[in-house]
């Protein structure tokens, strides 16, 4: 395995439930290797989305408290960064793609404006350079007519097109780590294959490691190198994908696999 680019140690996220703190992420630790595609698998409510939000510093203080011994991204401990510094890291060194692309796109601006903003902010490009870079990025996520997409508003695009625009934004700065939370759950199966293929190709070219959060073991089987199985806020098993499907060690993993194959749990 390559050297780790992200090292997470003892990450806990607590939320208030009936005025009592409850750890929805309960002291998890894992490494993400350079260029690796790591799956984080679990059922809804297991804490996988809260893990993603915590890594990106996106858990608002009102929604819960995050503590970690360390979240080290290429030598920087994100757990100790103030929000002002985190803002410079987010989108440049670590970026994200969520399930619903409309939450990441502003409905009142054309996609070109929003994509250019990433280049202007993080790479300090001028207006026309940013536009050229945006066009090129859209072509790389597979748009035949990138100019048209650039001039479109989000509502004028299909779900799969929107998610590819979000991926273009997330990959614009060739981040070291991309956190993708159920990026294709809202999409159709043919669109899903297209989006995941583009995403993994782009990440491969840029050397970006991906933490791919999913409940779909079919996606894990075909697009990921390794997997973490999460249940009730803890990682119950981690293994290389081939190993995981051939010989799951934890009974919970075996049950998830059985359900995915259509066997009654």
């Amino acid at each position, binding site marked *: 395995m390559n050297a780790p680019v992200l090292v997470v140690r003892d990450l806990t996220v607590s939320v208030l439930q009936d005025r009592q703190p409850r750890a929805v992420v309960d002291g998890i630790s894992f490494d993400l290797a350079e260029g690796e595609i790591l799956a984080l698998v679990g*059922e*809804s409510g297991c804490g996988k989305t809260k893990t993603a939000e915590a890594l990106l510093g996106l858990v608002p203080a009102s929604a819960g408290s995050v503590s970690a011994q360390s979240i080290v991204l290429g030598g920087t401990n994100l757990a100790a960064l103030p929000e002002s510094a985190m803002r410079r890291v987010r989108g440049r060194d670590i970026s994200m793609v969520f399930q619903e692309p409309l939450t990441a796109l502003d409905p009142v601006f054309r996609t070109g404006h929003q994509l250019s903003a990433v280049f202007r902010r993080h790479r300090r490009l001028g207006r026309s350079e940013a536009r050229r870079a945006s066009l090129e990025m859209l072509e790389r996520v597979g748009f035949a007519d990138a100019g048209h997409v650039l001039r479109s508003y989000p509502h004028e695009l*299909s*779900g*799969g*097109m929107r998610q590819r625009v979000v991926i273009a934004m997330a990959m614009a700065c060739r981040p070291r780590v991309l956190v993708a939370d159920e990026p294709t759950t809202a999409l*159709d*199966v*043919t*669109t*899903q*294959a*297209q989006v*995941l*293929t583009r995403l993994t190709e782009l990440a491969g070219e840029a050397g970006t490691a991906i933490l791919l959060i999913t*409940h*779909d*073991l*079919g*996606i*894990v*089987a*075909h*697009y990921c190198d390794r997997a973490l199985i999460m249940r009730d806020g803890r990682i119950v098993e981690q293994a290389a*994908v*081939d190993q995981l*499907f051939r010989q799951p060690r934890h009974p919970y993993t075996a*049950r*998830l*696999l059985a*359900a*995915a*194959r*259509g*066997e*009654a*749990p």
Partner: protein
Amino acid sequence: MAGMATSLLSVRDLVVRYPGRGRRPGEIVAVRGVNIDIAPATILAVVGESGSGKTSLARAILQLQPIASGRVLLSGEDLAALSPQQLRAARRDIQAVFQDPMASLSPRRSVLQSLIEPLDHFRIGAAGEREDRAVAALETVGLDPALRYRLPHELSGGQRQRVALARALVSGPRLIIADEPLSSLDVPSQVRIVDLLLELRDRLGVAFLFVSHDLSVVRRLADAVAVMYLGTVVETAPAQALFAAAAHPYTRALLAASPAPDPRLPRPLVLPGEPPSALTPTAGCVFHKRCSERLARCAAEEPAQSNPGSLEPHHSVRCFLWKA
């Protein structure tokens, strides 16, 4: 497919159109002449991606969507020809379950109240025994009757969908139109509901029209499958025949794009091109722009639905690659 005589539901040449509005004057043809049949106590899965017209088809069958032309026959009776009173009675026989159970359950009504409402509406049973019927429906869908005093938000997603199912069952329908009823659930809950639907089919003799985009669920559940693309049924077949030997290039692309939970199997294949828009009318076969096997005539003529002799009985396809 079964002939009209044995069909519980027959849909003939159904067309659904949405008028254009405002700056988009173009009209959308969501369903373009669909024919399907469902035999009693069988499950027909309508499979397709967003924009394929599968939800419009389901809504038109339920008479929730105006029909531009064509007929929907329940036991041979044209639903559009019924008087409002007759339609109300027919709704006892044809019920619906939707994707989001929260949208079909009132947030302020207990499970029991939601289950009694259809009984009151159809005046089924004496008022005093309606609670017993409601409790029996809960047991039928595998829920603890103790849950009857709960409100929807106090239930899990899987429990809510079971309540929605119980509510559809309580009036004793012969057909349930289920539009993506599993897509808001986790995989383990999906597996349990699939088992429940099969049990309801076998024990109560209920038929289902099951709208889904999830082929792995359809493979386990359906007796027959109709595949839709751009408002058209491009292939229909007994489920076994479809999964063993899909005939239409779109069906094959759909199957090849789904990731099987096994890393030893081939990686999903990408279907090139963008999903079509129902706004732009196409000449020829609905799939020709993305088809890797298209012939010259595919862009000009639309193939008819036919059963080539080389396919199994009841397996029909709209494609020039297959000679009738």
